Each structure stands twice: as C-alpha cells, then as structure tokens.
C-alpha cells in the first residue's frame, strides 16, 4: 500500500517537473514520438543572450516579487498591529478578505482606469503597486491572527521593565514574530512570482515577467522555451520548499 501511494505521488507530482526539463532540452520532439530524437542545451544557453529577453524577465520577476513581498510584509506587520488590537478587529478582517477573495484579473480590470489615468499602466511601477494592492490584504489577514493577548502582554511587560517602543519592537516583537514574518515574506513573494492575470492587464504585456514569458512562448507554440521558462518559474520555489516546506502553506490562494 505504502509503495503504491508513494509511486502515485511521484507520478502525479514529479512528472511535470521531469517533463519540463526533458522538453527544454529536447530536439525534434515531434508527434507521436514518446521520446525526443536528440538533446541540446541550446535553450538553456540562450538564457544569457540579451536579445532573448528571458534573463531580463527573470530579473524583472525577481525584482517585482522581492519588492512586493518586502513592502507588503513590513507594511502588513506594522499596520495589522493597530487593527488587531482595535475594537473593530473583526470588521477589518472581513474588509481584508474582500479584495483577497476577488479574482486578480477582474480586480485588474476594475483598477485599470485609475492606473491608466495616472500613467502607471504598462510600467513596472504600476505592476508593483497593483501587486502590492493584491498582496497587502493577504499579509493583513495573516498577521491579524498573529497579534494575540499574550504578545500584547509581553510587549507591555517590556515597557514596565523600562523598554522604549523601539526597544520593544527590536528586542521582543520582531524576534518573537520572526517565523511569521518569514512565512509572510515567502507567501507574498510566491503570490507575486506566480501572478499572471493582473500583471498582464496592468502591465499591458509590456512588463515581461516570467509568467508573461511562459504564456507568450505557449502562444507561439515554442515548446522548448515555454518549458525552459516554466523551469525557471518553478525551481526557485521548489528549492525553497526543500529547505522549509512550512513557508509554503498558510491557507494560501494560488489564484490570488
């Protein structure tokens, strides 16, 4: 029984990764061949060719995701503290869930007018702001559950022991919140890293993130490059998963 389950899990979950690697180095992978006729590293070598744009899109994706994750994590952490200890905490929680549960692409169409008017559409800054608007409610939801009476009591204790507000944050609150801060950072990084719909609408297809590239290659029926871009998209999170799988599950929504 155990062996069958493990075999099925390997088949279902590792085969996509294996396929993307094979397809990215395949030569003449024509229908109905089950296996390619040859192998080449040409696609992989092209990552670094400037005219290809793939290297740039890795960099763009990385930049957008890191900035989005850093800003939404830090802003969410600080702001959620006030919301969590407020008498209207449950109302704020619902208000954060409203945009979070909205389909990102439909949200993007709602926001498009404002981004267009402020000349942010088609620009990396616009995509950054739009992704922040998407990830910020998520970080608020995550942190609202973190602020509890015990943490408040510890903070108050620090004050009665003579600690200033800065000392309380630096020596107590942040160290005690390290794991949820990391969790939030990686989760918001992933939401941003995986984002396609909102990025394509607000970025007008001009901001070439990796997901945009994958879709572009699929549209061009360029299997080799589509597979290569897919590898670049999934391997960083896969490596992160290997180091700490708990960063990957926080009741998250892949479709956000």
């Amino acid at each position, binding site marked *: *029984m155990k062996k069958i*389950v*493990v075999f099925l*899990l*390997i088949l*279902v*979950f*590792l085969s*996509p*990764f294996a*396929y993307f690697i094979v*397809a990215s180095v395949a030569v003449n992978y024509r*229908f*109905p061949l*089950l296996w390619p006729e040859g192998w080449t590293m040409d696609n992989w070598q092209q990552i670094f060719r400037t005219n290809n744009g793939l290297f740039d899109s890795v960099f763009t994706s990385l930049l957008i995701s890191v900035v989005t994750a850093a800003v939404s994590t830090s*802003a969410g952490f600080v702001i959620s*503290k006030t*919301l969590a200890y*407020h008498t209207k905490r*449950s109302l*704020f*929680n*619902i*208000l*954060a869930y*409203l*945009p979070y*549960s*909205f*389909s990102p*692409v*439909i*949200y993007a*169409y*709602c*926001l498009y*007018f*404002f981004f267009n008017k402020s000349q942010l559409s088609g620009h990396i800054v616009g995509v950054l702001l739009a992704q922040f*608007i998407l990830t910020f409610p998520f970080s*608020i939801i995550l942190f609202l559950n973190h602020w509890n009476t015990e943490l408040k009591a510890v903070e108050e204790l620090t004050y009665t022991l003579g600690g200033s507000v800065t000392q309380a944050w630096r020596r107590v609150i942040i160290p005690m919140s390290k794991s949820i801060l990391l969790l939030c950072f990686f989760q918001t990084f*992933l939401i941003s890293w*995986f984002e*396609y*719909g909102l990025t394509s609408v607000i970025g007008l297809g001009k901001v070439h993130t990796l*997901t945009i590239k*994958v*879709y572009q290659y*699929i549209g061009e029926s360029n299997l080799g490059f589509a597979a290569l871009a*897919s590898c670049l*998209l*999934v391997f960083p*999170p*896969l490596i992160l*998963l290997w180091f700490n799988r708990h960063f*990957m*599950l926080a*009741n998250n*929504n*892949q*479709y956000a």
Partner: protein
Amino acid sequence: MNKNAIPIGLFLMFSVLPLAAGLLYALCYSLGWVGTLNTGFTLTYWSATLRDGDLWSSLGLSAFIALCSTALSVGLGLVLVLGCKDVLQRRIPNYLLYTPLAMPPIIFSFWVFQLMGSSGLLARWLIKTGWVRSIDTFPALINDRAHIGVMVALVLSTFPVFTLLFLNYYQSENIVGYSQLAHTLGATKRQTQTSIILPLLLRKAKPTILLYAIFLFGVFEVPLLLGRQSPRMISMLIHANFNKFNLMDLPRAYVITVIYAVIILSIVWMLFRKK
C-alpha cells in the same frame, strides 16, 4: 490626531479603497455615467446583459466547475488522509504533497495541456501502445465541452492543499484522541470515520473549503489555456469583453464585473460575519 488613524487610514487606502473605487467606477460605467461612451444615466447595458444567455451560462459554468473541483479535491484529500495518513506523514511523500504549491496555475495549465492535449503525452502513449489508432480518434480532453481539462488542472493543484490541511487538523484537533474515545464507547472503524473524523475535519475546514470554491469561481489562467470559447468561465467572459475591438462591449464588461463582485463579496461578507 488619534494614533490609530494613520495605520487604519493606510489599511483602508490600500486594501479597501482600490476595490471600492474600482467597483464604483465599474458601476458608473455600466450605468452610462462615465467612460468614452458616456450618454448619461441608462439601464440599457444592464437590461441587455441580463437578458444575454452568455452571462448566465458563464455564471452557471463557473459555479459548476468551482463546486465540482472543490468537491473532488476535498473528497480526494479525505480519502488520502483516512486511507493512508501514516504514509503521508513520512518525509518523502509529505514533501511530494507540497510540490504542487511550487507550481503556479499557468504552469498547471501548461502541464495538463501537454499531458492531455490531442498531441500530448497521453495521446502519444496511447498511440504507441495501440489503444488509439490516430490523433483523430483521441477524445478531446482539453478545450472540451465538459471542461475536463480545466477541472483536472484545478483538482491537481488544490487536492494536495486539502490533504495537507486535513493532515494538520488531524493533529491540531486531537482527532486520534476523539477516535480512541469513540472506540471505547463501542464505535466501529467505519462509524468512527463517518461520525467523528469526517465531521470534525469538515467542520474545521469549512471556511477554507468555501474560500477555495470562491477562488476557483474566478480562476483565470486555467480556462485561458484549457477552456472553451463558449460557454466560458466568468473571468474569461469579462476578459473577452474588455478586449473586444468594439467599444460598445465595455459597458457590458463592467456590468458583468459588478455582478461578479456582488456575488463574491456577498458570499465572503456572510461567511466571515457569521464566523
């Protein structure tokens, strides 16, 4: 000034205001108040859209796909947890369950496209083994009428999440303890599963299940690659209306957006207000 004003103001500005402003603009556009086609207040676009069969078939299809995919994912997760909990808690199988979390929806769609498409891996293998004679006799599994490809991609991406969630709840809700108690009270293994374990897991997971159904209702990347032109899921219908060359379709796109928003926001509001 109240020291809470700035954080609350920032929260409202970046969390609530964009959505509220976007929806207000959509509503105004759909009523002819704003936009390039602005002719003053009119209900023409609303009445035309509400009479349109496309809207209702899209809403129906989206609800059907969201409910079926969620039900299948939850069912599969429960079967796995009830049937082989111990195996799934071991290092390698547990790691494998996490791997789909490293795949965005667009990659799932691409994988299902390559797997189940008419020239995909499955078709190649079936032709090689002689089960299927030619590409023409291979059944349409993507861009198909029943949206099988879409549902396969959605189930593949969500059932591991539910499996992991149920595994976590198994520990956090002390389900082993409750099961042992039920056994000492005379319950059989089957009775324990149906009367204790399942209700406990489902009760705890209910908000997450509903939230996932809401997410899947508005999913975009998967039907973009694997769905059909007609009928199409609601996000695809909105996307198509926003991208038509005819500007007359824009108010209609905004009408559908407002309808989608009313449905989703009311469900979320009711779900969490009750909680």
